[in-house]
């Protein structure tokens, strides 16, 4: 773009020195030479209110040349950020020149007919615009040669002197090139995607306010590059879909929930080999899904694929039933931990924005069957869901607590209402339930439970006795798990909870 800028940017100083403004007398020149993008010949003052910025306003000779007229024209031209005002040549009061200086707008006097000057200037602007068109065609050819999205963005950024250029979806940056964004940048967005597409991307350039870029030209360059961006993105998506076939196949094969990993491998050995999976290689499965229960949006596949490249480019992302799946090779535990950290830091905010969660399988040295780790990842993603959008959860950190994710809270409350009506109706219900939960949390130790609640053990004992009176079967071992579960669920609905260490209490969005 550096080459073109000199050729296409017309400015007042340039045209005064060797262009159509040569024949004018400068009455006042602004210190910084104004950019010229168009010219209007006005015969009515009101017409100046319609001009675009960077326009040269030429007052036709029939308008007269009174001081008031020049003053009013200067004012209106200044309000429209015009580049200059040209008036028919004659003697001018110092007041008009003073006003031009005060407003900071260039004022020129035409020696000949202003209309002729306007025509000459229009021709000059037209010639400059045709250079712009040639330049845009060159940019279009340059980006058309690129086949990957990254290359296309880098080429666009290069044409714009390294400006930050990014592909965005709903405010989430999917890919970018050039200078990192700053808050003060002027943002120029251009829509990518056809009318019937559900997903609307924007390609965005960020122009620092200090830079001397012609914003209209920047936009034009983005516009001519749009088809190449779209083509590169569609091509990449197509290739990714093809590469993701083996991954997409695995959950489809895993229909028999009773079969063990070894049985699965045995049954599908031939097919797995054909798909390129080798037995004994350790992988970590990553599963993405929507944080809402019934909200799978297949149109996000392309978005997620672009985001996924920030974590790893090698493992393809497959769209599977109600979510997305990928299998990442992980040689050791460290690689697995790193993967989880990368997903959390690089994708976490974007996942939150898109309303998604991620779940990871455990790393195991003996490389369990793919079907197993796929199931683990699905379980982890399912467990992450109640914790809200953006959650990234590994099954390793969850363990058996995952089981509580699948408890129907509303049903448990119903059970409590029906089987323990006296407890539920008791005025001191909350105190008793807290005591029960603490007692069971501490494996039936009254001392430890009392300590955890900052109570005297006699007080706790009294509350437990009260629970027994209200019908809680505290002394029947086979019913203790259910009592514990009910206590945990009921505690969730209490206004003031003293502990928050269990997984149930972290859950959001449940009845």
């Amino acid at each position: 773009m550096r080459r073109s800028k000199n050729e296409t940017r017309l400015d007042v100083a340039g045209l005064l020195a060797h262009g159509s403004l040569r024949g004018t007398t400068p009455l006042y020149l602004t210190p910084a030479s104004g950019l010229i993008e168009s010219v209007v010949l006005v015969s009515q003052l009101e017409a100046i209110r319609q001009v675009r910025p960077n326009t040269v306003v030429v007052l036709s000779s029939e308008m007269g040349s009174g001081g008031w007229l020049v003053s009013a024209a200067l004012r209106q031209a200044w309000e429209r950020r015009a580049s200059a005002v040209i008036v028919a040549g004659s003697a001018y009061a110092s007041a008009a020149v003073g006003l031009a200086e005060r407003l900071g707008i260039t004022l020129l006097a035409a020696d000949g007919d202003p209309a002729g000057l306007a025509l000459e200037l229009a021709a000059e602007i037209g010639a400059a615009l045709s250079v712009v068109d040639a330049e845009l065609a060159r940019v279009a050819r340059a980006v058309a040669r690129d086949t990957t999205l990254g290359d296309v963005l880098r080429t666009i950024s290069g044409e714009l002197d390294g400006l930050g250029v990014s592909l965005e979806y709903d405010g989430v940056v999917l890919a970018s090139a050039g200078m990192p964004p700053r808050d003060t940048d002027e943002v120029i967005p251009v829509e990518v995607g056809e009318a019937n597409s559900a997903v609307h991307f924007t390609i965005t350039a960020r122009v620092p306010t200090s830079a001397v870029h012609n914003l209209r030209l920047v936009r034009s360059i983005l516009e001519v590059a749009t088809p190449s961006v779209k083509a590169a993105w569609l091509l990449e998506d197509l290739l990714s879909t093809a590469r993701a076939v083996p991954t997409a196949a695995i959950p489809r094969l895993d229909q028999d929930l009773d079969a063990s990993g070894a049985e699965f491998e045995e049954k599908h050995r031939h097919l797995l080999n054909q798909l390129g999976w080798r037995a004994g290689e350790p992988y970590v499965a990553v599963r993405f899904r929507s944080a809402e229960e019934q909200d799978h949006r297949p149109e996000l596949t392309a978005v997620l694929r672009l985001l996924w490249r920030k974590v790893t480019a090698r493992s393809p992302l497959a769209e599977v039933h109600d979510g997305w799946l990928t299998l990442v090779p992980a040689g050791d535990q460290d690689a697995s931990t790193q993967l989880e950290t990368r997903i959390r830091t690089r994708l976490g905010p974007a996942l939150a924005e898109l309303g998604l969660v991620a779940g990871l399988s455990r790393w195991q040295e003996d490389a369990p069957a793919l079907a197993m780790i796929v199931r683990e990842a699905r379980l982890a993603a399912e467990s992450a869901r109640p914790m809200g959008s953006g959650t990234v959860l590994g099954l390793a950190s969850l363990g058996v607590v995952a089981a509580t994710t699948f408890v129907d809270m509303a049903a448990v409350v119903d059970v409590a209402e029906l089987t323990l009506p006296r407890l539920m109706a008791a005025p001191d219900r909350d105190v008793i339930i807290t005591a029960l939960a603490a007692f069971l949390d501490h494996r039936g130790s009254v001392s430890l439970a009392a300590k955890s609640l900052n109570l005297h053990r006699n007080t706790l004992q009294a509350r437990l006795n009260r629970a027994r009176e209200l019908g809680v079967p505290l002394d029947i071992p086979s019913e203790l798990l259910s009592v514990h579960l009910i206590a945990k669920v009921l505690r969730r609905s209490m206004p003031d909870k003293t502990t928050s260490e269990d997984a149930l209490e972290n859950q959001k969005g449940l009845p």
Partner: protein
Amino acid sequence: MSTILTPEDVRNLRTGAHFLTCTIDPTAIYIYAEMIQRAMEDRSLELITVDELAPDDLVVAVGMVTQGLFIADMPPVGDEFLGCIRAIEASLGRPVRAVYSLAAANINGIVPLMVGLQSSLPVIDADPMGRVFPLISQTTLNIGNVAIGPIALMGVTGERAVIEVESAQRAETLVRAIVTELGGWAATAMYPCSAQQLMEHGVQGSISRMIRIGQILEASTSVERKLLLLAELLGTTRIGRARVSHIESLSRPTDLGLPAQPSSVTLEDETTGRIIHLEVQNEILLVLVDGEVAAAVPDMVTLLNSEQGTVVNIDDVQVGDVLDIMKITAAAQWYTEAGLDLTEPKAFGIPIMHPRRRHA
């Protein structure tokens, strides 16, 4: 409510009439004020409100129409207005019950008092302009479709004409032509109408307002206090206090029928650096502050001496003077579509839109 005017009222009226138009030559106002004050020594002058008349009483506007000649250069004999009123009565076959001013400023703001003294007719506290305009068609009665004719004119030589005319625009042309022939000015009586019509379409309270303005300006108080009182009375705003930096004449062509030479005055506000531009043609038509319209006809603009608070004549303005530029909002009728059509800057050959129209 009927009021008997005192010589003191006349003096204040004179000052008010001068204030409301930053006139080029106030000599005639002063001459008339003096004559009226002398005549009042043995006669009383009654100012009435229009509702004191019967609704169908005939009333008529009286005023001077000039065409290039200052009245002071060739003073009237004295019977001109009485002649005009008699001609209207003869033409319509009914007696005139009261007179009102053709304009609420300048000489025509004060002339009806003299006519009232001479004819013993009461003077109505109303007018059809609420200020002064150069054209006889620029009236609120015209907006209200009240006929301008018949018009009676009488010049200094005693010649008299009665024009039977419907259209105010056509009347303008005819009256201007006859006034030139009559010697440069003529006493006129026009817009004969019923008290009811004047009540509906005229501007009320114009004479008493001028008296009140005079009381404020003549009082021996500070300039700031005077400005404050004027703001309360008229909704006056001060556009700026600025020093005259440049005066030029003939900054644009004038239309036929619009008297007086156009000129413009540039001032600089020394505290803020704002550049203020006044376009003048008989009166101040347009005020630009840094090129933006701050006031435009039908707004009234007047200049005050920043030290004494006295009205400054445009002709006396000199480079270096520090002036207060005051804007007074005109009668509400003038800001309607029809009102602006008649009086906005375009009507005076300045192709600029009144800000009120732009925001409407």
